[in-house]
Structures are given as C-alpha cells and as structure tokens.
C-alpha cells in the first residue's frame, strides 16, 4: 500500500515507486541469507530470493525519473531498477 494518500500530494504530482534490485548474476548475500532462513521456519519450496530497495516519491515530471535512477537512486553498474507510476 502507498504510504502517502492522494490528499497529501502536491497538485499535479504523480506518485512513483522505484524498485531497485541487484543485477542478475551478481552475488546477493542478503537474498541467499533469507533463502536459507525460510526453510528453517518451515517454509518449503522457496527459491531465487533477492533483496533490493524501494524508493517512493511524488514527482511533478515523471520523465525525469529515469535520469534520477541513473544518477542517484540506483547504481547501474550493479543494480537494475524498475519505475512504477501510480495515478
């Protein structure tokens, strides 16, 4: 669920979510640790666990999101990012 309601948003702003993940093929020790912990709690059949980051933000100009990700929110050398825009 989005933590900020529509009423809190500046007029004209869009709510965006940026999902940031370790790039495929790069060792993800956090994901591996979670993957090992789940069976210990009795959850079977879990695979390919990866842990990333979530950035939520209100933006006036969604066309800037890509550049925000490239320059600051993600490190494109080691992370992939996915932008989701909500009304």
């Amino acid at each position, binding site marked *: 669920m989005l933590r900020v309601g529509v009423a809190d948003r500046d007029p004209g702003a869009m709510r965006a979510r940026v999902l940031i993940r*370790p790039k495929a093929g*790069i*060792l993800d*020790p*956090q994901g591996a*640790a979670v993957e090992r912990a789940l069976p210990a709690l009795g959850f079977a059949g879990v695979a390919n666990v990866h842990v990333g*980051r979530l950035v939520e933000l209100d933006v006036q100009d969604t066309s800037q999101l890509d550049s925000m990700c490239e320059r*600051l*929110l993600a*490190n494109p*050398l*080691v992370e992939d990012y996915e932008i989701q825009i909500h009304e």
Partner: protein
Amino acid sequence: MRRSLAPQMKFGVLQFPGSCDEVDALQAARRVGDAALIWHSQRDLGGADAIVVPGGFSYGDYLRAGAIARFSPAMESVIEFARDGGLVLGICNGFQVLCEAHLLPGALLPNANLRFTFRQVELDVVRSDTAFTRASGDLVRLSIPAKHSWGRYHADEPTLAELEDREQVVLRYAPGHNFNGSVRDIAGVCNEAGNVFGLMPHPEHAVDLLVGGSTDGLTIFQSMRLAVEEGAHV
C-alpha cells in the same frame, strides 16, 4: 624523511557528516607533510597538492555507501582536481565515494559474509611503481587493518579485463585474506591515468607500531609525497 625540501607538500583531507577516519588520515598525512581538513560544503580545496577521501559513513551511508557524498561541493572540486591530474587517495568509504563519482571503475558491494569485519589484512603489492606505492621499496606485502561491511569489489568482466590489461590493479588481498569476497582478490585499484587510487583497507591506521600492527600504511602517504615532489604522477 627529507626535511630540507621546502615548502612542504600539503594534503587536503575531506570531512563529510558521518566521516570517522578523517583525523587518523590527517595525522598520517602530517607524518609526511602538511595537512588540513576540508569540510564537505567547501568548494575551495585550500591549495592542497593531494586529496584524501577518508573512511567512515558519509551522510550515514544512506541509499548506498558514497552515493550522496559524491555530489557534495567538495567532491565536485575533487572531481575537477582529479581530471587535472591531481593525486586523490580514497580509503574505505572514500574508495566507495570515488567509485560512485566514476573516478574509479567498479563498485563496492556488501561483504559476501554479510558481516562487519575488522581484522589485519596482508596485501600483495601488484604494482610498486605507482604514485601511491613507489615508496614501498622492497616491501612486496603490506600488513594493514581493514574494517568494513561493504567492501566486496565488483566490476563486470570487460571492465576487469581492461583493468588487468592496463595494470590498474595495485593491491590484491594475499591468499587467505580476501574476507569480503572481492572479485579477483582486488583490494586497491587506480584509474587509467594513475592519479586516483582507492582501497578498502586503512593505511592511515597503520602508521605507528603502538596501534597499527605495522607502519606499512605510511608508505602510501610517503609515495604520494614523492610523486608530488617529482611532479609526475604516473
């Protein structure tokens, strides 16, 4: 140490909110020259001949280690300084900042063991002719402390091939000392021009036998002094 040379070279040591090794870096630099702190909001590097970006947790390591520090006014000046050929040393968090600023190739990731680790490490000197290692003399291995949780060096295969080709790998963890899982045991790299160098272990903590386990770290600062005095970095 050659005392007759005047004027003394000057190190500028950056200080961000969250830095914690700037004072040790300052003390280490003062054993070979003059040194002053540069606060992160300052654009003026105070006429420094060489810059040290120290360890710590700049801006709380928020977002990613070094990601925010890279955009500070002081760093903007350091980027220009480096592009003009100035000597820049990045230690631990400073190495992360230099990678984020694209002054050095690659990135630092969480240690493979997911633990903050503090231990003495042995480093093989791969290149003893750089501006940061030329005073190492007969030392083929440095013993200095490392302490970090985000020190796993990573670069993609083409970048690694380029690094090896151009001999930019300056230090490697000796066998049994790569505790963070760095690719190809890489502990320290320089840029193509050879005037920017970063490493995860802490030479500034190994300048006095009383606390550092060795004085091997001093050779990095002595090398920088030699390079500045010789006026040639590569």
